[in-house]
């Protein structure tokens, strides 16, 4: 029989967080407070999702999700929870197994019984919650208990609770909260096994991850928004400059750059004499492919373009590898995510920024910290991903395969990494909690003029 690994190895001391955590002390309090806020948002969602259109007794499939979602995005970046109103579900009447029976002879032809998560007769208990709310609440409560158990090293207990939880929550549920719980439970269960084995390195399928990221870029406007604003900042930095060089710390398929090239090629003062791009990433093969695509595109636009792939993490390179030329205007771009550790040690990355002294750094940060203790990351990411799941849910129907792909191949991967031992880097390195403050502390200044009313230098999503 395998013995569990005895040394406590899954978490790292972080700045400012108490090293001993007991269930009855402060962290629980913090957790509970945040939990309540989270519940308020999600409770309404559950009620709307799971209550049938009882008055009419019929159901129809809403096909107007797309339109609703776009309206909301114009006013308000985070989609409103009220979109749930427009999503009744289709239910199917099923005849008893061989189709030869009449409808009266069906099992369960009562309308109410067709749906499993229904608020039966609107029964509400003393706290004003109906059954599906209670279900969601109990799932989240159990999830928190698991997290606390993990944070205090009670692996066996956590594992038992997670076995339960992973059987109870479904990632295909109508309730976004239940989906979140399903993925969080799976991620924590994975972490418990890793703790048990004493190993925490990730195994990453970059192709699948990049593919899912691409799907993500095409669905909600988060990424497009980030691309747009960072391109604008770069354009401003490149105003009237003839030799420009962009370093993209994690280029993937480089989907952001064609738009920029287009504007550069058609700008009033004429295109730059040369556009250089240094693309960094995990696999040389993928980088070379990206480089080819971008070169072809640039050629069609008549841009003089050079591409340099570097298949190393930014924090681990030597500055000479970047080959910055004299009289070149440098822009550094970094779209952060939690899929894998793209840059290595943060302090090194920061030092390189200082040495390079680019004209602009465009940084897209997730509203999520990779640093801190497990519980810190757990609570922060629960909040963050609940919002992500809710917004996807507002945009796409419950059984949409691309929604499932994004949730499973992308968001779930990120959740897995964030909750893993040591966070996404899984290395024990200290990661900055907040790049913006680090950059500000180290003499990078946020430019103050902008026409488009967004953050040019630091965007968060």
């Amino acid at each position: 029989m395998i013995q569990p690994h005895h040394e406590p190895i899954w978490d790292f001391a972080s700045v400012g967080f108490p090293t001993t955590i007991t269930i009855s002390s402060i962290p629980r309090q913090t957790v509970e407070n945040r939990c309540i806020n989270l519940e308020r948002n999600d409770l309404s969602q559950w009620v709307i999702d799971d209550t049938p259109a009882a008055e009419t007794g019929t159901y129809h499939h809403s096909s107007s999700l797309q339109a609703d979602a776009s309206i909301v995005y114009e006013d308000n970046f985070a989609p409103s929870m009220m979109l749930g109103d427009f999503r009744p579900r289709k239910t199917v009447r099923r005849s008893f197994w061989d189709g030869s029976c009449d409808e009266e002879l069906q099992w369960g032809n009562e309308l109410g019984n067709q749906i499993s998560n229904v608020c039966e007769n609107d029964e509400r208990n003393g706290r004003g919650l109906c059954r599906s709310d209670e279900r969601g609440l109990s799932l989240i409560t159990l999830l928190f208990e698991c997290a606390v158990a993990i944070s205090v090293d009670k692996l066996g207990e956590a594992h038992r609770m997670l076995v339960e939880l992973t059987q109870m929550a479904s990632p295909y549920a109508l309730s976004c909260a239940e989906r979140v719980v399903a993925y969080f439970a799976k991620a924590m269960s994975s972490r418990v096994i890793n703790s048990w084995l004493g190993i925490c390195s990730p195994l990453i399928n970059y192709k699948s991850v990049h593919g899912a990221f691409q799907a993500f870029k095409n669905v909600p406007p988060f990424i497009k928004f980030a691309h747009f604003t960072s391109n604008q900042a770069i354009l401003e930095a490149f105003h009237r400059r003839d030799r420009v060089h962009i370093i993209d710390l994690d280029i993937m398929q480089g989907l952001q750059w064609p738009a920029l090239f287009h504007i550069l090629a058609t700008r009033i003062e004429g295109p730059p004499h040369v556009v250089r791009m240094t693309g960094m990433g995990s696999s040389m093969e993928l980088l070379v492919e990206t480089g080819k695509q971008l070169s072809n595109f640039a050629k069609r636009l008549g841009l003089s373009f050079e591409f340099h792939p570097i298949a190393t993490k930014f924090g681990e390179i030597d500055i000479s590898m970047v080959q910055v030329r004299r009289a070149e205007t440098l822009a550094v771009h970094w779209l952060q995510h939690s899929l894998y550790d793209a840059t290595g040690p943060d302090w090194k990355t920061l030092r390189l920024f200082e040495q390079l002294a680019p004209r602009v750094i465009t940084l897209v940060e997730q509203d999520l910290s990779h640093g801190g203790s497990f519980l810190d990351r757990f609570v922060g990411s629960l909040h963050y991903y609940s919002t992500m799941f809710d917004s996807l849910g507002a945009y796409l129907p419950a059984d949409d395969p691309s929604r499932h792909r994004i949730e499973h191949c992308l968001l779930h991967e990120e959740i897995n990494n964030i909750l893993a031992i040591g966070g996404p880097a899984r290395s024990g390195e200290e990661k900055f909690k907040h790049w913006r403050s680090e950059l500000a502390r180290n003499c990078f200044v946020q430019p103050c003029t902008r026409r488009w009313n967004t953050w040019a230098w630091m965007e968060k999503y």
Partner: protein
Amino acid sequence: MKLSSAKVPRESKGASQSHGGHHNSKRKSGYTILPFQPADQPEQWSSVAVDMHNNNINNHQQPQNSHTSTSRSSDYSAGAAEPCATGNKWASRLLTECARAISDKDSSKIHHLLWMLNELASPYGDSDQKLASYFLQALFCKATESGQRCYKTLTSVAEKGHSFDSARKLILKFQEVSPWTTFGHVAANGAILEALDGETKLHIIDISNTLCTQWPTLLEALATRNDETPHLKLTVVVTANIVRSVMKEISQRMEKFARLMGVPFEFNVISGLNNLGELTKEALGVLDDEAIAVNCIGALRRVAVEERGAVIQMFQSLGPKIVTVVEEEADFSSTRYDFVRCFEECLRFYTLYFEMLDESFSPTSNEKLMLERECSRSIVRVLACDNEQENGGGECERRERGSQWSDRLKEAFSPVGFSDDVVDDVKALLKRYRAGWTLAQLHQDETGLCLTWKDEPVVWASAWKP
């Protein structure tokens, strides 16, 4: 078993050499960080790793791996990397390797393979990922000897979440997209009706967990086929705890249905049995003037292996005119003392089953998820629970193939072939589903009919007379 412990240091020491701990080559300190040193690496690993890896070999799969790191063999680090994204059947290879390692008690290999499986598995992903996930659970339980506890937790959660609505929805949806269950129903009903033709008092003893979804068509046939509708008594023996709670609901509906069909009907439920062999004629309410049919769907596999003979003797003691048996084609019984062989058979069967589910249901189906979870419980039960702990409660799950059941049944009964009419009915049934389903008779002298999925026999149905 000596453990090689892999430790990740508490905080970054600043020096790039030891950061992340993945480069730590100080074996003497007692820490061996995975991936392992080349000296540790058995040759088989490279072949597994390279096999599952089709083209993208590079050094960058390990996170802290700098371009020039040479602290491990490149084969290994490459291999521990990207599984082919397009379904290279990596799961079955890794899982089988792991099962062998467990059987060989090779601790470091077990660790490594469990880690890989843990990273790659997901119950919500593609076929390989799902298999990896559920079998990983069983292997982990096996390696940590926590199978019984895990199984208890799984079943108690399932029972808690079980309701008539959810069960009904699940069964009906499954029947709609796949003939896996309806095949047995049609074959058995056909055999029963023919054997009991002309009788006036029928007593069917239904030992199954099908929630009586088999009987409405039979009731209808009874109502329409004969001039004089016989009296039907249905005694349902429930063998799984999970179904007990809903039988009341079902009995009401069955009675209502029979009334509508105009069939004189009596319905009884027997549950809470620890041992099917304990049943008696009296307990079942078998009367001398009744024509008895014993219908056994997916129930014999729940009987402890040593008691199966006794159960069949019990059937014989009831004096039935016909016994219908439907089981899934897999052998977890003769292999039960050989972990690796049992594992391989389990993997073979559930790979088929999961693929069938994937092709029959939509990708985001909750019903499919429920069925997969049911499988995960069986897998844990078969692979990670000791044979000695197979106490009653009807949760054994050790399937046998049709030929094995036949050998047992031949002790007390002789086989009855299915008539052409019944075979035609079954063929007509299969036509209603997607392609891939066919009928087969396994060998010339084999009894019963087999449902095949992509030419693999999956469900076996048979009929027997005294």
